[in-house]
Structure formats: structure tokens, C-alpha cells
């Protein structure tokens, strides 16, 4: 009967595919190339080619590109055989997982990651560690149990304090301010905002400054632009905006400089000199802050090398050399600080090119 024949054919098709899949795994199980078990050895000592892969929050982000540039240069100087960069085209929590998995399968010695979500990447990182990889978090931390060290660009508190200081200076010590952040889950953003709120509440110099809103531009240029618009409409007495993200401050700068608020509403935060130069020159922005992102990448690479070599384990008190940047010590919560922040204004903005 046609029905039974058809049934048999379909069953045959399914069986064949499953069989092939089984065959593939059996083959793999038997003859696994320098994959899992041996990458543990790769972590153990010199003589093995060490590899490092950077996984930023998202590709095609100008700030990240500078960090990665420093990271790749640092990796080469530190002696890694291979330095790769992989990442999602859009910053999402789950998309980083498949990249981590690919690295686990490749047996990479060191994975340097900036997490879109501190927990979602956890299980994948754990699996990578079980395979012998060392995990360095940078820029945006993962939950502490999933990484060996976290490289922080500056002391989180200092970043926050410098921004509240700048805005207080620029609005004359009193008035309403708002914060335009990136994504609501970004670890680094939330930490800085927390410190800023604390500072505003406890510091007697800021008692007349009121934080009226926090909005999120998701590190998307258009969205940040519209959030900035919304802020000024919803809070007509707003005197200042802090945007601790390079995409946000640039978008807000563009909005302010083409609107009637130019010069009247202060704007500060963390920005890239190349992006902010025109707004500093036309008076929209007086002063903002950042650090040298390339150094962040460099320290991350050297930290990775030290971990892979077994020179440090990431515990508090460990020291390692970050190439020509000098020595760094692992601090509380296994965090390494790169350096102090820099302030940019009309006087020095032309000295920088990133």
C-alpha cells in the first residue's frame, strides 16, 4: 500500500540522518583533535602556543574598536601566538554565548569578554573554564564566579565622582539633572549610576542638585537621540545631562547643538574625543571625561598571558606586568584597575586621536 511505502521511506530518511549524526559524533568522540582535554595542558605551561580571543559587547562600536586595537597590540607584545576578535553584530545577551561556545571548541587559552548580561554568559564561560580556558572580563563585568579577573578601566567610584563633579561645575551647583545611560542591564553603567546617586545624596556640595530621570538609549544612536529629546520635553527645567556612554553623549550632543538648548543645558559624561570634538568647539559641551581605551585592552591581554602562564591565579594581591604600562595588582573582588580618568575640554581635545 502506498501509505506503508511512504511511511517506510520517511522513516528511512529520518533513520539515515540520525545515523549520520550519530556517526559524526562517534567519529568525533573517538578522534577528537587538540580539543578539550589537551587545552588544559595549554593553560599549564610554556612551550604551547597560546591563543587569545576577545569578545566585545558588540562589533562596529568605535569605542570598542579602540580597546580591541590596544588588546591585539598587547597580545602580540605579550607573546600570544594568535589573537582573534569575534562578536555579535548587535549587543544581545544570548548572542555572545554561541561565540563563547565556538572558542571552547577551539580550545582557546584565554577568553577576554565584555558581557552584555552578567549572568546569561555564565554557563557557557563555565564550560570554557572546564575545558581549561582562562577567563578575563573587561569593560563590562560578568558575575564574579564566572571569571578569573576583571579589568576595570578606572576605579568605578572615581568614574562616577568625576562626572558628578563636572556636572555640578557646569550647572553652577544647583538644578535638575538627568542621566542618559546605555542598556539597563550593563554592569558597568549600573555601577557608575549607583555611585553617582550616592554621591549626589550624601555630598553636601550637591544638596541643591536633583536627579530627576534616568533614561536608556541602548547604545543606539537614534534611540539615544530620541531619549534626549524626550528628556528635555518631559523636564523643561533640566539644567544638565550626564551620559556615561560614548554613543549616548554623542547623540545628545548632536541633539543639543541643533536645538534651542545649545549652551543652556550642560552636557557631560564619557565620550570619545574624535566624536565630541565638534561639540566642544561649538560650545555645546564644556568638558567631559574618559580614559585611554587602548590601555584597557592592553592590560587585559597581559593579564590573560599571566593567567595562562600560571604566573598568577587571579587572587587578591597577585601582581603582573602589563607590558610598557608597568605593574598592576589584583585588588578586591579580583579587579584590576588600569589607571585614572582624563578630562577633555577645549584646551586639550586636539591632542588626542581616538
Amino acid at each position, binding site marked *: 500500500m*502506498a*501509505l506503508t*511505502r*511512504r*511511511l517506510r*521511506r*520517511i522513516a528511512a*530518511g*529520518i533513520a*539515515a*540522518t540520525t545515523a*549520520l*549524526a*550519530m556517526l*559524526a*559524533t562517534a*567519529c*568525533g*568522540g573517538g*578522534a*577528537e*583533535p587538540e*580539543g*578539550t582535554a589537551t587545552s588544559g595542558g595549554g593553560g599549564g605551561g610554556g612551550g604551547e602556543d597560546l591563543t587569545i580571543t576577545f569578545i566585545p559587547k558588540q*562589533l562596529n562600536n568605535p569605542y570598542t574598536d579602540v580597546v580591541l586595537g590596544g588588546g591585539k597590540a598587547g597580545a602580540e607584545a605579550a607573546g600570544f601566538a594568535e589573537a*582573534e576578535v*569575534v562578536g*555579535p*553584530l548587535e549587543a*544581545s*545577551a*544570548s548572542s555572545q*554565548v*554561541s*561565540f563563547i*561556545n*565556538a572558542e*571552547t*571548541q*577551539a580550545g582557546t587559552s584565554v577568553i577576554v569578554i565584555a558581557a552584555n*548580561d*552578567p*549572568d*546569561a554568559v*555564565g*554557563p557557557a564561560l563555565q564550560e570554557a573554564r572546564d575545558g581549561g580556558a582562562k577567563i578575563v572580563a573587561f569593560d563590562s563585568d560578568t*558575575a564574579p564566579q564566572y571569571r578569573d579577573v576583571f579589568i576595570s578601566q578606572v576605579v568605578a567610584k572615581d568614574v562616577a565622582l568625576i562626572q558628578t563633579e563636572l556636572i555640578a561645575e557646569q550647572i553652577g551647583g544647583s538644578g535638575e539633572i538627568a542621566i542618559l545611560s546605555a*542598556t*539597563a*542591564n550593563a554592569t558597568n553603567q549600573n555601577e557608575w549610576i549607583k555611585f553617582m546617586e550616592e554621591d549626589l545624596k550624601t555630598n553636601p556640595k550637591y544638596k541643591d542638585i536633583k536627579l530627576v530621570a534616568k533614561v*536608556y538609549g541602548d547604545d543606539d544612536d537614534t534611540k539615544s537621540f530620541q531619549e534626549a529629546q524626550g528628556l528635555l520635553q518631559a523636564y523643561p527645567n533640566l539644567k544638565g545631562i550626564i551620559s556615561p556612554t560614548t554613543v549616548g553623549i554623542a547623540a545628545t550632543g548632536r541633539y543639543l547643538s541643533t536645538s534651542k538648548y545649545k549652551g543652556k543645558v550642560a552636557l557631560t559624561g564619557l565620550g570619545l574625543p574624535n566624536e565630541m570634538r565638534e561639540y566642544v568647539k561649538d560650545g555645546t559641551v564644556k568638558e567631559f571625561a574618559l580614559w585611554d581605551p587602548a590601555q584597557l585592552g592592553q592590560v587585559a591581554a597581559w593579564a590573560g598571558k599571566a593567567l595562562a602562564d600560571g604566573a598568577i591565579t587571579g587572587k587578591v594581591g597577585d601582581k603582573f606586568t602589563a607590558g610598557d604600562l608597568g605593574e598592576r595588582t589584583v585588588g578586591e573582588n579580583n579587579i584590576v584597575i588600569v589607571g585614572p580618568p582624563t578630562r577633555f575640554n577645549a584646551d586639550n581635545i586636539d591632542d588626542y586621536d581616538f
Partner: protein
Amino acid sequence: MSEVLVEETKGLTGVARILLSRGSIMIYVLVAVLVYCILVVPRFASVRTTGFLLLDVIPILMIATPMTLVIISGEIDLSVASTAGLASAVMGVLWAGGMNIGLVMVICLVVGLVAGTVNGILVTVIGLPSLAVTIGTLALYRGLALVVIGDNAVANFPPALTRFTTSKIGTTGIPVVMIIVAVIVIIFGVLLHFTPFGRALFALGFSSEAAEFVGIKVNRAKLYLYVATGLISAMAGIFWTLRYSSARSDNASGLELAVIAGVLLGGVSIFGGKGSIPGVIAGVLLIGVINYALRLQRISDVVLIIVTGSLLIASVVGPSLFEWLRGLRHDRRVRRELARSEHASPTIQT
């Protein structure tokens, strides 16, 4: 007296029909690509691959199965990813609120059922076009997910559950959850290919009016399909949440495109009335394998995107081209035959 001028070519019958159907061809292509990858791509042939690849592909496979039936019956459902996201958001909020995890999952499934029912009622009872309706519910359900969980992410799901979700069967590397997926595939596959209900769906896809006249309860069938799709989407949302141990409002965002790409690649006609489950499984797996192989070699996602898009276009242009060529050949043959019969018995000229 009429004369048969040309022997019309018969359509494929019997064994050939099944072995050379679009669905089977996709299976052959999948096998060929798999073999190629195993041989050529370094590190591909490994237990890890099976595990990671299947885990990545499971939500797409799950949703593609009922979606196949929906598209074959002539409709479409673009809101599946938003339903999954809504289920994930509800799961996160309820769990963070301290509810028992079992109860949480049941409620999420109910959310999926409701979402699917709303779609179904709008399409069948009120008679709205499914493309527009599901674009609307795509926005609505994703919006509700945002309202429910906002910008928060819930992460501390019971470790036993999350471990189970990513655990594999023995040493084969196949995730345990694949068993559930296999059950879903078998249920819908049998439903579509071996039951009167399934055959009715094909008829529906060709012409819902004709199907109505034949006695098929068009509206009821479509309603069931939408409810089923909503339920399975919620299941996919639960899986997603547990796999990444993270409930966020943007979970599974954009998944509907991957599902539709896989379904269309697998031979289902967007107009309805044609398609098969094995073909769709092969289509989804094919895209998954190619994606994985490219990622493994650290080839940029850029290439991945272009490849997926090209595959999609090729999958519809190909058969179209093929049909056109066949039409040309047919026309040429008819003309030849006519010329020959003219020659043999010329028509009387006046």
C-alpha cells in the same frame, strides 16, 4: 474525433515522487553539507558540535514545526518570537516573586495558549488577514513583555533545572531536550502527513473556499493551529530562559525570521498547500549547520547573514526557474508536434 497530439509528461509517481520531492532534496543537501563540514571544517566533527549546535537550533526547530502547518494551511504567524519573549518575561517575574517553579512554567504555557488563541480568533472569527494580525500581535506581545519585566533581567533560576536543560544524553552530545523536540516533530509530522486533518490542511492551503465546500471546518482547523503555535512558542520561551538562565524582555527577539527562513528553505510554499515536515527539519538544520560551521571558523557574522539571505532567495527562485525551463521545453515540444502533424495532414486551404 479528437487526437492526442503530444504525450503529456506524467508527474512523478510512487517512489520517485517521495525520493525526488522538495523535502527529500533538502535532506540530501543537508547530508551533503554535513559530510563536507565533517571532512573539511577543523574541529567540526566532535561531540561538542552536536551539543552546541542542537542547543542553538532547538527553539527554532520547536517553533518551525507548528509553523509549517500554519503556512501550509495558507496563513502565517509572525508573532511566535514575541510569544516566546512574553513567556520568558512572565517566567522571570513570577520566579523572582517567589512562586514555585513548576507552577511558573505551567502559567507560562497558559500564556502561550492565550496568545495563540487571540491570534486564532482574530484570524478565523473576525476574519482578519493573518499577516497584518500577527504583525500587530508581534508588537503587542513584545510590548507586553516589556511592560511585565521592563529593563530587568532575572537570572537565578534553579541550577538543577538549568543544568538539566543543557545536559546531554550520555556521551553522544545530543541534548536531553531533543527528546521533547523529537516528540513534537513526530506528533506534528504524523498529524500533517498521515491523518485526514493533515490532508485537509493541504486542501485549505490550495483553496479555503473549495475546502469549505468539501466539508472541512476551515475556521476550527486554523484556530487549533494558532493555539498550538502559541503553546509551542511558550515552550520555546521557557527553554530559552532556562538555557541562558536569564529572563529578559528581548529574549528570542528576531527568532521569527530564522523560523520562517528555515521553513521556506525546507520546501514549504508561502502560498500554502505544499510542504513537508522532514523538509522543514532539514531546512532548519541546514541553516544551523552552516551558521555553526562559519562561526567555528571565526568567519564574520556578515558572511552568515548574506549566506542565509541568498539561500532563502535561491530556495524560491530555483523552483521558479525550474518551472519556467520546463514550460519552455513543453512549449517547444508542442510546437514540434503541431508542425509534424501539419506536415502529415495539411489543413485545407481555401
